[in-house]
């Protein structure tokens, strides 16, 4: 196990200078501290979002209206999505980016540390405002996370708060993305060329470009919603000459790239982990980079596949159908490369690898159901049914969330200097595997049989699979607490982690001690071949 140090200068200043709690956590400009804050914040948001999903599944466990009113049910489905997407998945990946990108490229910190602090601290206020709407007269937003007008404009006081919260989240995301781009383009240590960067940095660079391009579009769309409601404009108001369908086009021009914003960093994580535990270099590194870029480009030209049933010319339907199917090509390249990396590798199945293999298999299921939805005549049958719910949960839960969990287990020893309990982590994995599939797989059957989404009651013919799905949800709700327990135990009693806890892990982050000192790469590292995740210094 080689643990040489590629760097000259690391400090534990946070401990040496005895920063106060407030100084360290509220005014921090340190990328590791801010990364930790992002990850803790997203964990809290995941718990809140999961609690909302339990309310939804409790109501749907048996036919009939039992526990909550339909109005509150609608608020739960809407808030669950907003909290999970903007509060859970996105901040988790920004947290991972904060922790790992400077470590992986040999930079002392993010390029704009003060802006980094601001990007994070906007979020708690944004989500406090969003969640507060549940206690306003009329309740929170209930028209779905897409906020389609005219429905989304018919809620009481929630609209203004929701839109302001979305603006704040957008500003936070854009600032985070700017920081990632500025860091990667300007702060790389000498010797780390773009095509020698770890693939996680590449996927994040491309994700950051997506964020810069589409978050302002969402901001513009919700600004127009706001003026429609409060300033008598008619952007989307048919009575005033506006077009509500235009909102849907604009929303999905943001919304489809948003899906890739949530999954590309997970691709990066899995592309780091699979080579480590297969004890082989990543197969087709450059193809992976170009495939990621291709997926990002294609994500801009397929948005109307979310709107086939709204009505559009036949030529439009055919174009969006085939353009959507094209995405399967670069995605297939990635899946092929992951499998080929494992092929004839000396594989071991530590927890990060288990989560990554599950990611490849289950995300592919989500991809295949996505292909089914891309077929126009089929989509007319599936649209707004539970098939769609099953599809995007396979992409976002067993895709994005599994990627986040894999990353946490993989880099945890580097962050904390402690190993986690492998047996407990494997139990966490298998528990989740059972219940996540119980939760979401039956929803395919429900959707194909015609059960509509976003409805608190349903026909008795759907009863059996709904009960199974709800049992899965209750089992899934245990998992974040299980993970918290494993990680808390590791912090207190875990074995001491070496600098390179995974013997085949490559990349600069493994050359610094564990836990990573508070300040790393204060002077730029001298890179040697073994330090690079990909390629050699001299070539």
């Amino acid at each position, binding site marked *: 196990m080689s643990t040489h140090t*590629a760097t000259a200068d690391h400090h534990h200043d946070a401990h040496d200078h005895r920063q106060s709690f407030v100084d360290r956590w509220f005014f921090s400009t340190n990328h590791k501290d801010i990364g930790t804050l992002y990850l803790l914040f997203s964990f809290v948001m995941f718990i809140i979002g999961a609690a909302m999903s339990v309310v939804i599944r409790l109501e749907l466990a048996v036919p009939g209206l039992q526990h909550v009113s339909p109005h509150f049910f609608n608020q739960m489905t809407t808030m669950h999505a907003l909290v999970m997407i903007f509060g859970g998945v996105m901040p988790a990946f920004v947290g991972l980016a904060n922790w790992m990108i400077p470590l992986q490229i040999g930079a002392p910190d993010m390029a704009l540390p003060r802006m980094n602090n601001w990007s994070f601290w906007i979020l708690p206020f944004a989500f406090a405002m969003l969640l507060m709407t549940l206690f306003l007269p009329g309740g929170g937003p209930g028209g779905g996370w897409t906020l389609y007008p005219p429905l989304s404009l018919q809620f009481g006081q929630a609209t203004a708060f929701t839109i302001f919260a979305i603006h704040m989240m957008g500003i936070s995301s854009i600032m985070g993305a*700017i*920081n990632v781009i500025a860091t990667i383009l*300007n702060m790389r240590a000498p010797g780390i060329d773009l095509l020698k960067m770890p693939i996680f940095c590449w996927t994040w660079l491309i994700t950051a470009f997506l964020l810069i391009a589409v978050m302002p579009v969402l901001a*513009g769309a919700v600004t127009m919603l706001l003026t429609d409601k409060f300033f008598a404009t008619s952007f989307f108001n048919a009575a005033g000459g506006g077009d509500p369908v235009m909102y849907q086009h604009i929303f999905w021009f943001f919304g489809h790239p948003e899906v890739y914003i949530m999954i590309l960093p997970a691709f990066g994580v899995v592309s780091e982990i699979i080579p480590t535990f297969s004890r082989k270099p990543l197969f087709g590194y450059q193809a992976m980079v170009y495939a990621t870029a291709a997926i990002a480009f294609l994500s801009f030209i397929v948005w109307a596949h979310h709107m086939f049933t709204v009505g559009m010319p036949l030529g439009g339907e055919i174009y969006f159908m085939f353009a959507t199917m094209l995405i399967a090509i670069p995605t297939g390249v990635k899946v092929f490369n992951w499998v080929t990396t494992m092929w004839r590798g000396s594989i071991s199945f530590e927890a990060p690898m288990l989560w990554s293999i599950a990611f490849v298999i289950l995300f592919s299921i989500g991809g295949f159901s996505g292909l089914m939805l891309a077929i126009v005549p089929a989509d007319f049958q599936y649209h707004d049914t539970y098939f769609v719910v099953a599809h995007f949960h396979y992409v976002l839960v067993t895709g994005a969330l599994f990627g986040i969990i894999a990353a946490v287990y993989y880099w945890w020893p580097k962050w904390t200097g402690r190993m986690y309990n492998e047996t407990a982590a494997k139990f966490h994995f298998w528990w989740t595997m059972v219940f996540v599939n119980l939760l979401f797989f039956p929803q395919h059957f429900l959707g194909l049989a015609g059960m509509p989404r976003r409805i608190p009651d349903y026909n008795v013919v759907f009863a059996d699979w709904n009960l199974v799905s709800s049992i899965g949800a209750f089992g899934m709700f245990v998992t974040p607490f299980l993970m918290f327990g494993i990680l808390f135990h590791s912090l207190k009693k875990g074995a001491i982690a070496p600098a390179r806890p995974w013997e085949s892990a490559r990349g600069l982050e493994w050359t610094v001690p564990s836990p990573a000192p508070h300040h790393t790469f204060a*002077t730029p590292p*001298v890179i040697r071949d073994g330090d690079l995740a990909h390629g050699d210094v001299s070539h």
Partner: protein
Amino acid sequence: MSGPERPTDELAQRRRRAVRTALVFGAIALAIYIVFILSGVIGR
């Protein structure tokens, strides 16, 4: 082992370049937002 000392002005130069990159991308984001809304207003 220790790495070579980087002159402070080189690090400062990198920081300046990073700020410039940030300003460019911030301006792009702001431009998308403003042009997008203006296109909605003028386009009507």
